[in-house]
């Protein structure tokens, strides 16, 4: 049924969208803290943030499954607060995605904040700008490209997630059944036609998103040069 694939697409977009928003909210201060941190514990925190890059998703999924179960504290607290079970819920796959995609958001932001340095922030403080003002008037406009990269990577990586969701989400249509899981189901059922449709859509979608990121990150100068070159060529042509 195509409808179930559409349902999976909607679930996927909802999950990835919500995950990206949460990641930007918690990833920005975390990246800022790491960029400014000089303590030797910095490497420990950096390693923890980067862990999902190398850890098999099933390992993370397995531990989250245990933590989210009603027998353990995080799952119990969730159940007390919301009255619902955490494991095999939409909330569970969002939390799992946040952890799993964290490095894709934190690392580009951290790098951008480190490159920005303190000099402009010192200058703006001396002009009377407080910390929040400095963030929105200086940091954000000057690192906008990195925010777009971070958000896109976080979003794309969450869309492509499989192992963690398989472990903690189950396969509940409209709740935790996302595209990658639907694709796996089609292959298992030898429905290659539908598997192809999903695969090619995911492939093209990811490709377009990455191309957009790289385009946004092109150095502005080279773009300007191109425009100037083009203008000068036209100029010569007119001579």
């Amino acid at each position, binding site marked *: 049924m195509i409808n179930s694939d559409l349902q999976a697409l909607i679930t996927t977009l909802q999950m990835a969208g919500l995950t990206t928003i949460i990641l930007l909210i918690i990833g920005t201060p975390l990246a800022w803290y790491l960029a400014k941190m000089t303590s030797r514990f910095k490497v420990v925190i950096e390693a923890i943030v980067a862990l999902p890059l190398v850890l098999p998703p099933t390992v993370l999924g397995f531990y989250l499954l245990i933590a989210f179960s009603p027998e353990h504290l995080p799952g119990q607290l969730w159940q007390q607060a919301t009255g619902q079970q955490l494991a095999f819920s939409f909330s569970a796959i969002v939390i799992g995605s946040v952890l799993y995609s964290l490095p894709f958001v934190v690392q580009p932001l951290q790098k951008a904040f480190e490159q920005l340095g303190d*000099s402009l922030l010192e*200058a703006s403080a001396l002009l009377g700008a407080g910390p929040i003002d400095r963030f929105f008037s200086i940091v954000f406009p*000057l690192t906008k490209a990195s925010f777009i990269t971070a958000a896109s990577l976080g979003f794309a990586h969450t869309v492509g997630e499989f192992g963690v969701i398989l472990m903690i989400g189950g396969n509940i249509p409209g709740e935790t059944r996302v595209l990658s899981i639907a694709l796996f189901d089609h292959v298992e059922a030898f429905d290659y036609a539908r598997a192809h449709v999903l695969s090619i859509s995911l492939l093209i979608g990811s490709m377009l998103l990455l191309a957009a990121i790289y385009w946004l990150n092109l150095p502005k100068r080279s773009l300007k040069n191109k425009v100037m070159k083009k203008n000068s060529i036209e100029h010569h042509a007119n001579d």
Partner: protein
Amino acid sequence: MTKLPISKTHQAAAQLDIDVSISFQQFDLTIKQAIPLKGITGIFGHSASGKSTLLRAIAGLEKALSGHIKLGDKYLAHSKENLCLKPEERHVGLVFQNSRLFSHLTVLGNLEYATKRCQNRQLNLNEVIELTELSELLVHQVSELSGGQQQRVALARAILAEPKLLLLDEPLSALDRQSKTGLLKMMLNIQQKLKLPMLYVSHSLDELQQVCDNLLVMSKGEVVSFGNIHKVIHKLNSIDDSEIIHQQTSLSLPIKGFNNGHDLTTLSLNAEQDIYLICDQAFQHQTQLRCFILASDISISLTEPSDSSIVNHLLGTIRQMNHQKHNVLLTVNCGSQDFYVTISAFSQKRLSLSPRQQVYLQFKAGAVRTFIH
């Protein structure tokens, strides 16, 4: 909202009281000095003498200090009372060596960044733009500007925040000579119009000599000397090290005649004695002139030279003779002014010069130097 006249916007507070120590790996900075908040005070010293660190401490960018900094009647930092105001709460401006302009904003955007966050808002944006000659550049991106233009934007931006004290950390060091002179003039003009006290850090005594009223000399994190700029420079003359100072006579004299008909300007040294220097259009509207004469540019004669092309010869009395590594430094008193002269030990012996002896000082009009043209 009515704008107050520009000259009344900055009422200078009494003094900047500094009593701080800051520990670094290479050296400790220990400064105890009260600086009158009047005119431009120069801070002179070699690299790693701690002068930039001192400015950063006053601005609130250097937090790990013990002691106190008091601007007028307000403490900016007081370690005993655990008080350390944030940079944005200090009303202290700082112009950095590299202008630190905001590259995502235009020139006007950079200026408005300051005005939007200023609580007083008594300065008129257009007046400051005029003072810093930026009206042609307002719509430009800051990356399109030359170094000198960028520093003018940085200066205007700092002024528009309406600080009670403006700090300048080697603002001219990356500029060519022409931009330097232009910016120095601008600083002087702004200081006089806005009555904004400034602390100006530089390793160029020539620059400081032209604009500063007082001079603070630092070495290895400590204050070596503080006071009237001419007196402090003359005190530095006793250091026989051309790396630190070109021994000189530093003067601030009234202009007696702009042009004597032969393109020479006359300065009045005292009731009887004048000094001639080469006339410059810029002197026309000035009543007072800052100039200096290098000790190596003055020669000594025992009789009054009457058949020499050298225009300046002053009768004086040798007050002091110091034998240095390669020559002899004479302090010669003319009226109430001391002149500093270096001659070879050979000449000193040949003329058998001694203290209290009367001599003639000779120097060309071209040896009387000014930085601002």
